[in-house]
């Protein structure tokens, strides 16, 4: 492996493209620096390029251009086996004819570690994921959650610098998913290894990641902490994909203090930022920042909406509102459920503070 840089530790993707035959661009202009020990989640709808990016990192596919380095070592052209990274495949890809112990010991066997040594290490990895009692079973004799732990143990035993997980929770039922989120995260903290996790589930990404990489249309739309993404989506794609955001489009009419004034078909909105009058402008407001009342509709940052349906979520109430025929979302505290429900089918006022909104990139 060629040493290209002594400065950058961790995983670095630089100007990475992957174009499939027939000019299908799966991954475009990806630049990303993952620190060692980070928990990174690639999030995006299916077909957004997240799995292709993971395959490029894992060495199961080659970039059309651009470079991938790990701790300064060039990875382009290096086989998956020789990379200090291993993949936990979607649906786990366990060896059905091998026992749990043989599955876990496989990587060490391939490295030529002698039998006693590799079994000892495999047993330690199996112990780490809590499957010591199941060691002699075949994968098909295990539940989905247990198979997943075997898949994890199988990659952990080779002591990789990073682990790639392709939709690791996709095959599990919801309750088990919740449990495995916590377990995976705890395991990653304990081991201090970089985890790169691919999912299309926003909630999963928000609950697990140190940083989330939102991908859409083959490019990185935004990289940020869960909080940054939830509070400050950069563009409309991220705002919509992260859910619970209301987006307004319009034309910038001027500025007012530190705010941009945007004229939209639904009224005038003000949002922190700068802009040039006459240019198109878009802003997003989170559902939970929207106040719902029966007060008079304010002239700015307020709309009259019809309450179609109040959805009780336990800790909050999600309000499905109708804004001139378009869906609009608000979230209020669950204590207000009875009060709000009485307004179903009637007009209410939705308003928000200017500083809670944010200007989206065009």
């Amino acid at each position: 492996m060629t040493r290209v840089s002594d400065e950058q530790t961790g995983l670095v993707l630089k100007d990475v493209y992957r174009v499939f035959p027939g000019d299908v661009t799966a991954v475009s202009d990806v630049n990303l620096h993952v620190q060692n020990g980070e928990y990174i989640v690639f999030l995006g709808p299916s077909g957004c390029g997240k799995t292709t990016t993971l395959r490029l990192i894992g060495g199961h596919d080659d970039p059309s251009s651009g470079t991938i380095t790990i701790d300064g070592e060039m990875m382009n052209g290096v086989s998956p086996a020789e990379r200090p990274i291993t993949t936990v495949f979607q649906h786990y890809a366990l060896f059905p004819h091998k026992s749990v112990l043989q599955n876990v010991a496989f990587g060490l066997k391939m490295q030529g570690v002698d039998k006693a040594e590799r079994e000892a290490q495999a047993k330690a990895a199996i112990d780490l994921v809590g499957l010591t009692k199941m060691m002699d079973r075949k994968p098909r004799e295990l539940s989905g959650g247990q198979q997943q732990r075997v898949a994890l143990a199988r990659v952990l035993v080779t002591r990789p610098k990073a682990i790639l997980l392709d939709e690791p929770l996709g095959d599990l039922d919801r309750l088990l998913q919740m449990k495995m989120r916590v377990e995976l995260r705890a395991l990653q903290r304990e081991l201090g290894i970089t985890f790169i996790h691919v999912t299309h589930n926003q909630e999963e990404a928000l609950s697990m990641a140190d940083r989330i990489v939102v991908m859409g249309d083959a490019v990185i739309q935004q990289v940020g902490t869960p909080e940054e993404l939830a509070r400050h989506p950069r563009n409309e794609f991220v705002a919509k994909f992260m859910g619970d955001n209301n987006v307004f489009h319009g034309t910038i009419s001027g500025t007012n203090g530190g705010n941009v004034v945007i004229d939209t078909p639904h009224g005038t909105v003000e949002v922190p930022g700068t802009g040039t009058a006459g240019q198109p402008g878009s802003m997003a407001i989170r559902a939970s920042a929207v106040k719902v009342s029966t007060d008079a509709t304010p002239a700015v940052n307020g709309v009259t909406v019809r309450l179609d349906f109040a959805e009780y979520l336990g800790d909050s109430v999600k309000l499905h509102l109708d804004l001139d025929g378009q869906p609009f979302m608000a979230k209020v505290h669950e204590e207000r459920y009875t009060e709000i429900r009485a307004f179903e089918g009637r007009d209410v006022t939705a308003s928000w503070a200017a500083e809670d909104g944010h200007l989206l990139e065009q």
Partner: protein
Amino acid sequence: MSNEDAKHTALEEAKRAVEEAEALTGGSAVAVHATTGPRRSPLVTLAWVAPGTIWLLLFLIAPLVMIVLVSLWQKTPVGFDPFVFTTEGYTKLFQTPVYLDTLKDTIIRALLVTALCILIGYPIAYFLARGVSSIRYQIALFVFVLAPFWVAYVVRIVAWLPVLGRQGVINYFLVEVIGVRAEPIDALLYSNFAIILALVQLYVLFMVTPIFFQLATLDNAAIEAARDLGATPAKVFREVVLPLSLPGVLIGCIFVFVLVMGEFATVRLIGGGTIQSVGTLVYDYYKLPDLPTAAAGATILVAVMTIGVAVLLRFSKIREVV
């Protein structure tokens, strides 16, 4: 988390469901459980099962029973007497060294042909399933491999005569073209070598087909995972591909072994009457006519094949691999 917990909860839930159902029906919940599937009249079920059952009874069970019965009847100059039971047919066979030797030869030949079919068939199936990336070419090549099946069985056998015969292609080449032999080799035809060659050609497809399908449906992710964990191509094959393709190999072995054990026409035509198989021997008794002895020979053959298949299944634990 522990799976036991999950199981425990599931069990409790099931118990609770049963209790609730009992409360609702005011009685046994077992009846409720028994009717969870679609309701179907027993007559309808019978109608579904009948064709297959009748087919099996008529064409498999009935002939087998008949053969066993005939083998136990008394031979008469023109046929058999169904009112006198005797084991004469079996005694005759076991006292004739030719029959036992032929049985031994037939088993050895069947094993040898099966082994050769694996050696030749596996690489073909492997190439078709894993070496050809386009599904269209894969299917086209597979149909091409099946081409010999388009030709009648006897034609495929007879086609060997002008190749292996005294004045056949090979002898002509050896004697006339390169002149390494002064006289043609007779052993090319009417020999065990020729029979085995023809049998392998006839039956190798029964080996290729199941292996091909097994390999074609192999989980690519398992192979990718093996590579990811550092397996070289040779190790991927030995550790993952080969073990996962064994069920296909086993099914191929059963096909080829059973078919070659019962072989008759190939041995007669290519063996030229000098080489016997249990099949040709049974035919000879049948022509005498000595039907009870012929039936006894066939019964023993069926028994040996059944044992062979049972041994194959027993040692391979076919269901455990997939």
